[in-house]
């Protein structure tokens, strides 16, 4: 780091600032437009992040394999899993919507989780994972498109609406989904930028050889 003051500008409104060191866990925001200028370089706790990502993956698997809702109507009953819910639009000429909802509610959260697991697995051994840049860009790109929390609220509202004239019971998948929503929020809050300072995997193996 240079001993001279470093001038930098806000990426959004180009106001000028002088770089100052900030405390752990803090972030510097632009005074004018509230855009994030930079964050402190605090590493995410590796003993916390990898188990969190693995738990989220197991819970994701439970969400997909167990029914979200049980519906009873006199003698007949019906169950709905997340895949059935997302692909319900496929029965008419609404196939694009079926594909979109499978992507938004299943594929994108899964891809996000896989990226988190890949990055945190290598960071556990103090290495930067192969394809780190791609994973980071994918996580940032998918963030607005992964809609687990919207799905949880939607299932809640639909359950209340259905309970007016049917007998409804939440399934294992419903509770698992609630847990998955919390875990994904925790994972998204991690300061992933700090992981750039880990040594690359190839350079570590070269040093050893």
């Amino acid at each position, binding site marked *: 780091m240079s001993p001279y003051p470093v001038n*930098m500008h806000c990426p959004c409104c180009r106001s000028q600032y002088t770089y100052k060191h900030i405390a752990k866990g803090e972030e510097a925001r632009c005074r004018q*437009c509230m855009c994030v200028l930079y964050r402190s370089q605090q590493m995410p706790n590796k003993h916390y992040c990898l188990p969190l990502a693995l738990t989220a993956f197991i819970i994701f698997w439970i969400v997909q394999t167990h029914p979200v809702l049980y519906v009873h109507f006199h003698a007949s009953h*019906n169950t709905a899993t997340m895949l059935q819910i997302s692909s319900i639009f496929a029965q008419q000429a609404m196939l694009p919507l079926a594909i979109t909802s499978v992507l938004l509610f299943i594929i994108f959260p899964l891809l996000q989780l896989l990226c988190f697991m890949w990055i945190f697995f290598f960071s556990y051994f103090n290495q930067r994972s192969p394809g780190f840049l791609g994973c980071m860009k994918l996580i940032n790109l998918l963030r607005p498109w992964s809609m687990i929390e919207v799905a949880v609220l939607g299932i809640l509202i639909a359950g209340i609406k259905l309970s007016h004239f049917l007998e409804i019971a939440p399934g294992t998948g419903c509770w698992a989904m609630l847990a998955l929503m919390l875990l994904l929020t925790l994972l998204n809050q991690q300061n992933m930028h700090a992981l750039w300072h880990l040594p690359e995997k190839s350079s570590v193996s070269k040093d050893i050889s």
Partner: protein
Amino acid sequence: MTQNAFICPVCNSLCDEHFHTQICPCCKTSFHHKKKLSLTKSYVFLSTAVCCYIPANMLPVMQTNLFGNTQNNTIMSGIIDFWLSGSYGIAAIIFIASVFIPCFKFLVLFFLLLSTKYQSQTGKSTRTKLYFFIDQIGYWSMLDVIVVAVISASIQFKSLSTVIPDYGILFFAAMVIFTMLATICYDPYLIWKDIES
């Protein structure tokens, strides 16, 4: 003596701005032409979204066939049903997610695009905050799509009662996605651009 630098938004490292090449040495991302054709893309996506919003409200979102009684439900009729049955909170949530947020986003984006076109000098920081706000809340509009999907998937009792999603929800989902794309394409730097020139 000072040194000029910028912070890379992808990897958060402090980069020297020596040769006016805005390429991050750490992750090799270039920020020179950040969002090409930002305004045009945003206009196109926004007008497509507004076009989709009209059939989304006119066409039924689902066709319910309960005990031989067929009924077509639109978004507004669903909200009114909740309100009349006494679930005011849920009626409010659905109203906010599927009517208020989309209309608010249309108005804010249209206002942002117009003010950028005429290079308005007032309320720049408010406009930037407004942009980040609609960027955060946009995806909650997808709520209605999942509600329709859950209801249709749950009520499948062959001859007795069935619920079939209708074309209104297709246009509604398209509207949400196009508004999100319009928001992502808009570059908030455009609000401040003339400061630099």
